[in-house]
């Protein structure tokens, strides 16, 4: 198929359909409204379920229920809406049910603004839900990458029986780009959903229960150990990142999503000025590509973490760096978007940006 021009939110929705979504439950919020708008038409046309719930809390619990029945289920929201869903997300992760959540980040905290931001890194990777659970978090930098990831997201969720969060910012959601929907998807041998609560007629003599309550302390600890083993396997198999220009760079930028694309242009401008700058671009934020930091040469003068926030991924950069290099930070927030010249300036004045 030839490329088409499509809005990020709509492309995300179409990619979910191509990824096999059976049901969508959501509640409106800017800047992600084109996701449910698109699905409300096209899912129903395809004989699938689209339901606008009475609240975010209701929507995520509908996801919990339908995921328990073995269906490919999705919800979508933006920053404060994702905050409301956190309880349900913890329950789904605890019950080991697969689902896909898309989050189109806007400015925060609180109601914040509806402009693009990346202030939900903590929300996505640390979560607001309780307990020792982890999501699988993807942070694409373009509409094309959003499509490629969404098409695979239900497979990843089903394979690991774990919620997958696709995290984009409002700019990726609102902009339009030339994209290709026919790029190949990684083949995965998916296990049969013999745990699905589809009624005992499907599994005679065995009750399937989707549950997150374990009254017995040892039973719960065993479940937590099992979850941690699963998360370690996910880290081993699914961690994704891109490295750019890592042969002897003077500096290394770490950035994801829209910020990474702004940095790509800055790196070109810096090259023209004779400053060699590499980039580590995490594609999965959780699991985080810690090992990539081992590839930064000793001679590199510093690492600049760039975010559309006041410094959240910075924590993971500091953890991954293990004190080897100086680490600086550049951030804009509230919906303010820097142009590449601001990143160029931050690298040229790196010593002012150093935090550790």
């Amino acid at each position, binding site marked *: 198929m*030839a*490329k*088409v*021009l499509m809005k990020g939110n709509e492309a995300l929705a179409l990619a979910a359909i191509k990824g096999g979504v059976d049901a969508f439950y959501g509640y409106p919020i*800017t*800047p992600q409204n084109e996701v449910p708008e698109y699905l409300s038409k096209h899912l129903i046309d395809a004989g699938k379920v689209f339901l606008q719930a009475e609240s975010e809390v209701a929507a995520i619990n509908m996801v919990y229920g339908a995921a328990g029945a073995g269906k490919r289920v999705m919800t979508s929201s933006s920053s404060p809406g994702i905050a409301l869903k956190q309880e349900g997300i913890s329950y789904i992760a605890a019950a080991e049910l697969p689902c896909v959540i898309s989050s189109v980040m806007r400015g925060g905290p609180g109601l914040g*603004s*509806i*402009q693009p931001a990346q202030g939900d890194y903590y929300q996505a990777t640390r979560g607001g839900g309780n307990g020792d659970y982890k999501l699988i978090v993807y942070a694409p930098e373009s509409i094309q990458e959003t499509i490629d990831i969404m098409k695979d997201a239900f497979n990843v969720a089903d394979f690991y029986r774990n919620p997958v969060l696709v995290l984009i910012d409002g*700019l990726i959601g*609102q*902009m*339009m*780009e*030339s994209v290709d929907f026919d790029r190949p998807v990684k083949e995965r041998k998916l296990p049969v959903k013999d745990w699905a609560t589809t009624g005992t007629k499907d599994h005679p003599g065995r009750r399937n229960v989707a549950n997150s309550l374990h009254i017995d302390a040892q039973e719960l600890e065993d479940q937590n150990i099992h979850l941690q083993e699963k998360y370690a396997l996910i880290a081993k198999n699914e961690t994704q990142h891109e490295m750019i220009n890592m042969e002897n760079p003077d500096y290394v930028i770490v950035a994801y999503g*829209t910020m990474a*694309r*702004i*940095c*790509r*242009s*800055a790196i*070109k401008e810096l090259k023209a000025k004779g400053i060699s700058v590499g980039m580590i671009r995490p594609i999965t934020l959780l699991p985080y590509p810690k090992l990539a930091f081992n590839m930064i040469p000793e001679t590199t003068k510093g690492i600049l973490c760039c975010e559309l926030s006041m410094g959240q991924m910075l924590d993971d950069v500091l953890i991954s760096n293990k004190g080897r290099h100086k680490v600086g930070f550049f951030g804009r927030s509230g919906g303010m*978007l*820097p*142009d*590449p*010249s601001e990143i160029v300036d931050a690298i040229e004045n790196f010593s002012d940006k150093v935090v550790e």
Partner: protein
Amino acid sequence: MNSASNIKVAGFGGQGVMMFGQILAYSATKDELFGLWFPSYGPETRGGTANCSVIVSNEEINSPIFKNSDHLVAFNGPSLEKFKKNVSPKGLILYNSSIITEAPKGCDQTCLGVPINDIAIELGNAKVANMVMMGAYLELTKMFSDETILAVVKKILGEKKAHLLELNEKALEAGKAFVRNASISYA
């Protein structure tokens, strides 16, 4: 066309500003180039200046955000005021001279006013003013062929509004004719 063009399109809501930008991005996609469009959205689009940014490139687009535009297409006075300072020195400024009666002063770029509202009204429909502007823009930049633009416009109009294609085509041609007859000092 070589390398990338950064284009800022701005005006009042309802002037067809967003559509102008989208037509460029659709045309880029149709010609197998890379197109990117993004709108200003939210409160700033209400009452003030609605604007969108477009990048047309023959290679993959990096930053969606740019500081300087190669081309500014201003549909009203506040937009021209707001964005003219960020146009590249060798760039192009096109403005709606039906409502911007005073040419911008000290303008180093190629700068041209097109009375798009008057031309559109002469054609019988004020709503095609943005297509008059498109004609002028394409005559100056040669960014896309008529064939590409008209195919895109036809698709956007769809079956329901197919009867408007001819009017849009006339508007496009009128914009082009205006530029051919204008005296322009190129930057």
